[in-house]
């Protein structure tokens, strides 16, 4: 208490903080990065363990026998698909009915704002086929979902076959499973703006969902995909369950396509863990659903995708074993008395056996965010210095800061116009690309998608010219006070933005913080303009995205050349906009409406006259 009420000690503290501000900031930044890299080091992380009692001790015996028959069904399905030249909806309905399910279909269409060049579609349309297996003596309140995405091309046939096999098997046993066998190109009920026919049959509130992707008869390993829309993750117990059954049945299991390594104490082992974790961070930060399960997560339904991978490895696993694995997982999920809630919802996984909980990874972000607050404190003290001379009482001292801060002559004119103008640019970046695509297509020889992406980049670049125009509106132009207030506001704004983002989606917040925090901390008008401007551009959100694309490709062991990377970057932007309009992904509006304007404020400070 003496610290705050004693003016001398407080003065000493603030002077310490202002004097040592830069070294402390540098230390914080390095410590933040180091902490983050330390998260992948195995001794620092926790082993995964099953928290849910209902799934822990009650072992189930898996007896699924009909792998071969499932594959035969898959081949039949493929033949029908070829014959129809699309989705053999009628055949699926008939087959599922023959297996004793209640079958319903739901068709949906959605027109995209611009054509999706990756998937070559302008209109998302399809039919969900779902069969309901009613549990005996259950009042239709709960359900489990097993789904497989179907596309007209020749992938995922085996998953459909296995799904049908499992359905038949579950039907013949009297398990208390209520489950939907969904075969869909997207799960879209209750999505705004989507035209869909009403659902005919209902099962109950969905407790958990698994999505199966399987494109070969035998597999070498199963990959678990967790990242969902907006970086949401399912409860960690779902990952634990998958891992436990892979161990029990003896199937190789991976996460991010990376096998577990035993040698954490070697450099290679550590690098491997870092790569795995970085992949998860990048995928989570992208905010897109990385499998069909991703859309369940927003409805608070725990869901994951299981993907079969067939690589050049000696030991193969057949469909019966995968069927047994799924059966086991479902029977354990069926044992649940409550929704999965015991384990973590916020975590990172450097490997399937280890996880980093929110309590461990948040300090890494906290250290970066501290820099913003320290710089803000420094500025605040600098701004308040003249007022301090006259007043001495602690309360008055505090008020004096506010006074200097709140006095309209200093505050309002200096940062309000910049704030408004940069946000308007943000709004333009958010709306114009999609709105102006037709005009762009008329005047330039580009396709709609290119038009959208290039307009976005053009607006982004045009924003860089703003400082030369905003100064006209600023009356208190050129004062030292002016840019300090603007920088103080920008720092606090950025701190709040990044803090909120990190709470929802740690990965996104952290990645943005790594690049934006140094830019925000260092920028002043008194620096060599050309050099600093270059650094600022390199640290801007757009460039961060570009780096992420390259790093992601590098980590996936599919490095790309610079032009390829650029093309990938363009498609990532278009995908981001499409994800926003199709699923409601928040990354694009966040970047366009908030982060980019905030960066523009910093850019304004650099060119302060």
């Amino acid at each position, binding site marked *: *208490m003496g610290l*705050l*009420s004693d003016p001398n000690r407080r003065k000493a503290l603030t002077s310490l903080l202002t004097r040592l501000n830069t070294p402390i900031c540098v230390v914080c930044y390095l410590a933040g990065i180091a902490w983050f890299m330390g998260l992948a080091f195995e001794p620092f992380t926790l082993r995964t363990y099953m928290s849910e009692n209902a799934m822990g001790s009650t072992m189930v015996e898996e007896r699924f026998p009909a792998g071969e028959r499932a594959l035969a069904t898959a081949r039949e399905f493929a033949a029908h698909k070829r014959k129809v030249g699309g989705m053999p909806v009628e055949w699926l309905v008939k087959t599922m009915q023959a297996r*004793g399910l*209640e079958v319903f279909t739901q068709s949906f269409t959605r027109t995209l704002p611009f054509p999706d060049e990756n998937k070559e579609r302008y209109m998302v349309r399809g039919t969900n086929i779902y069969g309901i297996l*009613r549990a*005996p*003596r*259950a*009042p*239709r*309140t*709960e359900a489990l979902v097993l789904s497989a995405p179907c596309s007209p091309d020749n992938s995922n046939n085996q998953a459909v076959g296995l799904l049908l096999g499992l359905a038949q098997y579950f*039907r*013949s*046993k*009297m398990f208390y499973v209520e489950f939907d066998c969904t075969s869909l190109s997207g799960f879209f009920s*209750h999505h705004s703006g989507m035209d869909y026919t*009403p659902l005919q*049959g*209902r099962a*109950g*509130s969905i407790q958990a969902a698994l999505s199966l992707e399987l494109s070969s008869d035998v597999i070498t390993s199963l990959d678990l995909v967790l990242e969902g829309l907006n970086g949401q993750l399912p409860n960690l117990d779902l990952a634990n369950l998958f891992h436990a059954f892979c161990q029990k049945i003896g199937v190789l299991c991976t996460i991010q396509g990376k096998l577990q390594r035993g040698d954490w104490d070697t450099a290679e082992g550590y690098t491997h863990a870092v790569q795995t974790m970085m992949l998860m961070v990048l995928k989570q930060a992208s905010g897109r659903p990385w499998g069909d399960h991703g859309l369940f997560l*927003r*409805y*608070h339904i725990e869901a994951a995708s299981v993907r079969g991978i067939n690589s050049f490895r000696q030991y193969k696993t057949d469909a019966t074993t995968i069927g047994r694995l799924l059966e086991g997982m479902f029977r354990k999920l069926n044992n649940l*008395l*409550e*929704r999965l*809630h015991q384990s973590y919802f916020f975590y990172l996984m450097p490997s399937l056996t280890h996880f980093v909980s929110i309590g461990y990874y948040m300090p890494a972000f906290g250290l970066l965010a501290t820099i913003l607050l320290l710089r803000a404190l420094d500025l605040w003290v600098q701004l308040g210095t003249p007022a301090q001379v006259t007043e*001495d*009482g*602690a*309360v008055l001292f505090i008020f004096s800061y506010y006074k200097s801060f709140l006095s309209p002559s200093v505050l309002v004119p200096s940062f309000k116009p910049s704030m408004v103008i940069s946000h308007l640019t943000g709004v333009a970046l958010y709306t114009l690309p999609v709105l102006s695509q037709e005009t762009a297509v008329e005047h330039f020889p580009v396709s709609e998608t290119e038009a959208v992406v290039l307009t976005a980049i053009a607006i982004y670049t045009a924003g860089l010219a703003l400082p030369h125009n905003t100064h006209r509106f600023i009356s208190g132009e050129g004062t030292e006070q002016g840019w300090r207030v603007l920088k103080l506001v920008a720092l606090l704004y950025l701190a709040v933005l990044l803090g909120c983002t990190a709470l929802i989606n740690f990965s996104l917040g952290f990645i943005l913080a790594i690049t934006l925090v140094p830019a925000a901390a260092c920028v002043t008008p008194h620096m060599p303009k050309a050099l600093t401007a270059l650094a600022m551009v390199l640290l801007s959100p757009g460039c961060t995205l570009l780096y992420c694309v390259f790093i992601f490709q590098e980590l996936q062991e599919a490095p790309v050349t610079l032009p390829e990377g650029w093309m990938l970057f363009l498609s990532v932007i278009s995908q981001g906009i499409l994800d926003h309009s199709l699923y409601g992904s928040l990354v694009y509006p966040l970047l366009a409406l908030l982060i980019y304007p905030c960066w523009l404020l910093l850019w304004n400070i650099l060119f302060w006259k």
Partner: protein
Amino acid sequence: MAAVGVFALAALVLSCKCDSVEKPSDATGAGTGSEAERSGPAAASAGSEAPGGGAGAAVSLPDSCEEELLIRPLHSGDIYASFQFRTLWDTDFLHQGKKVSHYRLFPKSLGQVLSKFSVRELHISFTQGYWRTMQWGQPIVPSPPGAELWVWFHNTVADVDGNWKELTNVLSGIFCASLNFIDSTNTVQPSASFKPLGLGNATDHRFLRYATLPREIVCTENLTPWKKLLPCGSKAGLAVLMKSEKLFHSSFHSQAVHIRPVCKDWQCSSTAWELRQTLNVVFDLYTSGQGKKEWSLFKMFSRTLTEACPLASSSKVYVDVTDNPEGELFDLSPATSVLNTAVVLGDRRTYSVYDLTQKETFGQLRSLNLVLRWKGESGDMLRPLLHAERYVAGFGLQTGEIHTLIYNNHPYRAFPVLLLDSVPWYLRLYIHTLTVTSKTRENKPSYIHYQPSKDRLRPHLLEMLVQLPPHSVTEVTVQFERALLKWTEYTPDPNHGFYVGSSVISALVPSVVAMDTNNTQERPLFSSFFPTKEESSYFVRVYTEPLLVNLPTPDFSMPYNVICLTCTVVAVGYGSFYNLLTRTFQVEEPSQPLAKRLANVIRRIRGVPLL
């Protein structure tokens, strides 16, 4: 000795009731003949030991009971078995207010409850599973998942709520169920949906109480007390089939008790109490039969029938053979020539009847094991005319929307339905968001009775009379907000969710028989021009699924965290600010260096002015 008297009684009642039982006269004759033959020696021995006793009992105690088993092969390949036991008690204690202490066939435990709590009508059902209307058609006795209890009290009762509370506790003991969890927060007084089924024209719904416990799980411990209420227990008659390991290895299980006053005879000069015990089971023969569609009594119940309940005046097994007039769909053995046609739920059904009171029913093996072998695939079922489903839409834990879909599958007739919704108080209904739409147009209910909830006291009650256009889906939606409960009010498994009981839809549905105006095969032409009253529409009650709604649930390890956090915030934040605000600040004299102070001391001694 007692059994002997009872035999005589059974014969007496049967012979006097034979005109009301629909069956060919030769069968009746044979039945009475065989009964007389069986009871002959018994009556003789009774006469020799206690002359006049049997006859006296028959005159003064005309209670009777009947038992019935209806088996219906469903289109989905499942088998529906419905037991009904009806006990009549010829006493009328309500009007005279006299105590009745003599019980014969009527269970004493229930009789005492009736007289003590002045119950006029009592309906209680325990159900495990949900009746799949779209696959199975309409049930004979509808019931919602979980437990349901509705009671009409006599209009002399002063403290209905007190009686109701005691009654639920007593019934909870009788049926080994959690009926004691019925309190004011889940009891409603429907104004129109639940009318008395028995005698009496009670319309004042102050004397009606209705409650459901959708979470109630029904199992053996509920079946045993239910079986004890039967006149023969589970010792003889149809009740021997009720082995709990089989009854609970099924897709649907529902048991119910209905008590109501009925007319004693057709002139209705005096009243009697009717106790109707029903048990409905649906067996899934796909799972137990390894894919083969074939069933027998033995397969279903692991028992066969060997005798009727000796106390019952009538004991019959009906098998629904409507879909199988020429025997092309399935084979039923042993075959019976006794057929009975009745209009059940608006549909004309044909039944093969097996009378258990006849010796030849059991054949040479002295046991009846009905066997049914499917020959072909059953055709499509006629869609049930009225069907409903319900679900919760929306995501997040703040608001939501309850959707109730009511299907009228009649091709050209519109009919009104009464919808009853009882929603617990912790889902706060926004009644202004109530919308009723049919065929994308607003459908204004002609009657709405809404009673808002009171927190922790009573639930929402919403009753509506909605006209369903022909061949349409009517959607009733209402939005709600989820309340945050007090932390002691959560159930032990709060993340499972909270149950909302089924909606009840009561309707007079136009009959399928009346729909079929071309059918002149069985009826004379003159009978089918105007639809007759009793066949033109029939009463149906449809229950929707119960809902499982997640409420915002705190992390229950949170109190610890909250205490820690609060203490820290109070200690650091509040303490320092309080300190700053209350302290008076004074400018402190800068302390002098030691040398100066020493010099001053010397100067004071010397009397020189201080430095």
